[in-house]
């Protein structure tokens, strides 16, 4: 494989990412399943990088999951999004940063629709006015939170205390980077690196000392599929997609998987557990799974945050093997405690997947 070829492609897909004064809109899935990641993002942006990130408590879901499972009509979704923009305008912000990848794709889709079909924009302005009395401006910049972390990866590296290398041997850790489909598949120019060789996570990994591995199913969807997961009868689709990826990446022995979409790490984490229960198969070494990280968690680890502050305890596939490789200290006795040290018991161990 010739890496220079990929670098040439990355150069072609540069996009503008705002550098401050962000309006942050949260992700339904991220908040539910890896909430500490959003906490980490804000901590990094506000405390470490001293950036202005504003959250309006009045904001809601963009309705993306409802839209992509087709219970919410396009007009409704566009108007909900218009309301989000109205909150932005109200607070004098121009730079939108989304926590969710589906949102990111949807905001781009809606903005492109309004660009090509001004009548639709007019209609939506009318809807929003009638429903809420609100008006809005189009944001100047729309970025995903992973774009922002990518943008500041060097700054994070400079103040970081950990690297993506094996702390004993010094070998770069091997990373599978998994990009959410809605990041750039629909609008390749809106993703750093385009759709075929997205660079947003590769850039982080390389900056922080790791090595990205390529494998045949790299671009394959994790299988969320919206309705394909939400309805139990369809869930086999979702599982099969993730399984396809695991089978493809296994021979390359990744040390962990890095993702930028809120849904993907949840699926790649849970489906490893499910496959171990259903088929007795595990994809990591010695009966373990391959740890799955969000980019916020990874940035937090680089910066030396406590793994349990980062929420790694709520991963079904234990992250401890990775922490051990990186030489990161953690207190197992505190893993499942509450904020004030309350004993909350422990989850049951799965029957196959090695648990800690």
């Amino acid at each position: 494989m010739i890496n220079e070829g990929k670098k040439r492609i990355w150069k072609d897909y540069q996009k503008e990412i705002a550098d401050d004064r962000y309006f942050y809109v949260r992700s339904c899935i991220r908040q539910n399943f890896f909430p500490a990641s959003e906490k980490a993002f804000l901590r990094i942006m506000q405390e470490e990088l001293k950036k202005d990130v504003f959250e309006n408590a009045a904001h809601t879901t963009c309705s993306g999951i409802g839209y992509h499972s087709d219970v919410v009509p396009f007009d409704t979704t566009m108007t909900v999004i218009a309301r989000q923009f109205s909150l932005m305008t109200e607070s004098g912000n121009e730079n939108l940063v989304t926590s969710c990848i589906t949102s990111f794709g949807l905001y781009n889709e809606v903005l492109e629709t309004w660009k090509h079909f001004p009548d639709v924009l007019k209609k939506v302005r009318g809807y929003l006015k009638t429903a809420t009395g609100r008006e809005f401006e189009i944001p100047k910049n729309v970025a995903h939170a992973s774009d922002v972390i990518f943008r500041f990866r060097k700054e994070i590296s400079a103040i970081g205390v950990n690297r993506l290398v094996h702390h004993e041997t010094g070998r770069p850790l091997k990373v599978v980077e998994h990009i959410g489909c809605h990041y750039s598949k629909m609008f390749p120019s809106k993703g750093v690196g385009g759709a075929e060789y997205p660079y947003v996570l590769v850039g982080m990994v390389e900056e922080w000392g790791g090595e990205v591995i390529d494998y045949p199913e790299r671009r394959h969807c994790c299988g969320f599929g919206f309705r394909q997961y939400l309805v139990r009868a369809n869930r086999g689709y979702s599982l099969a997609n993730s399984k396809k990826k695991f089978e493809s990446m296994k021979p390359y022995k990744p040390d962990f998987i890095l993702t930028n979409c809120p849904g993907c790490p949840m699926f790649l984490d849970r489906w490893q557990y499910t496959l171990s229960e259903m088929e007795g198969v595990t994809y990591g070494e010695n009966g373990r799974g391959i740890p799955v990280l969000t980019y916020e968690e990874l940035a937090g680890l680089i910066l030396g945050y406590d793994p349990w502050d980062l929420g790694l305890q709520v991963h079904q596939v234990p992250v401890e093997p990775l922490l051990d490789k990186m030489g990161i200290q953690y207190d197992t006795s505190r893993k499942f405690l509450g904020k004030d040290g309350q004993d909350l018991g422990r989850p049951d161990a799965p029957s196959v997947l090695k648990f800690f």
Partner: protein
Amino acid sequence: MDRLYDMLSADVRFKEGLKACLHCGTCTAICPAAEFYNYQPRKIVEILQTKNEEEIEALLKGDMIWYCGECMSCVTRCPRGNAPGLLITVLRGLSQDLGYFTESEKGRQQLAIKRTVGEWILEYGYCMFPSEVRPEAHPEQGPVWKWEVEHIEEVMERLGANYAKTGPGILRKVPDEDLQELKKIFDVTGGTRRFEKIEACSRQKAEEMGMELTDSLDSEYVHHIYTTNDPKHTAAE
């Protein structure tokens, strides 16, 4: 009633998504749904291009349009700039708005989604909420999730959330006036109308099928649509 094709083309996403398919197959080659289901997105575009009223009606009443996972991998590749994934959202929308969706096994599932994600949007301001992802109904979420849900407030506090409380933060309580704005948006833009249509058609179908359908997620019809999966969808042909 207008011709189905005309109703479809009134949607701007239809215009964006259908621009003279030449049946090269790049969409189907890359489609995850085509890998696992007896399905080719190309077939859908083929049918739409004929503009044939009967075929399109069959499409709206059949399972075929419900296999797609809306990953948009097809959009990346099409050499003519078509977007089968977009066309599917338009077809699914029309299928529900006309009440055709209850004619197919996969289409009938929309009620389950409306009563979960759909209603959660209006109730919480989020598409999902931890107390709604019940471990009994989601064994695949695993024992850690189960433990989490059992101690949700403490765990959320530990993870830095502002769980169900006022003010900004993770999983905050979205203020009622904002939820009301959301509801008004749904009312004005046809969202409520679609929700009602999904309910009404499903009730009718449940009656036809001789199953009980109450407001609860635990009723017979909901359980049936939530779990029924005909092997034909994935069987070797």
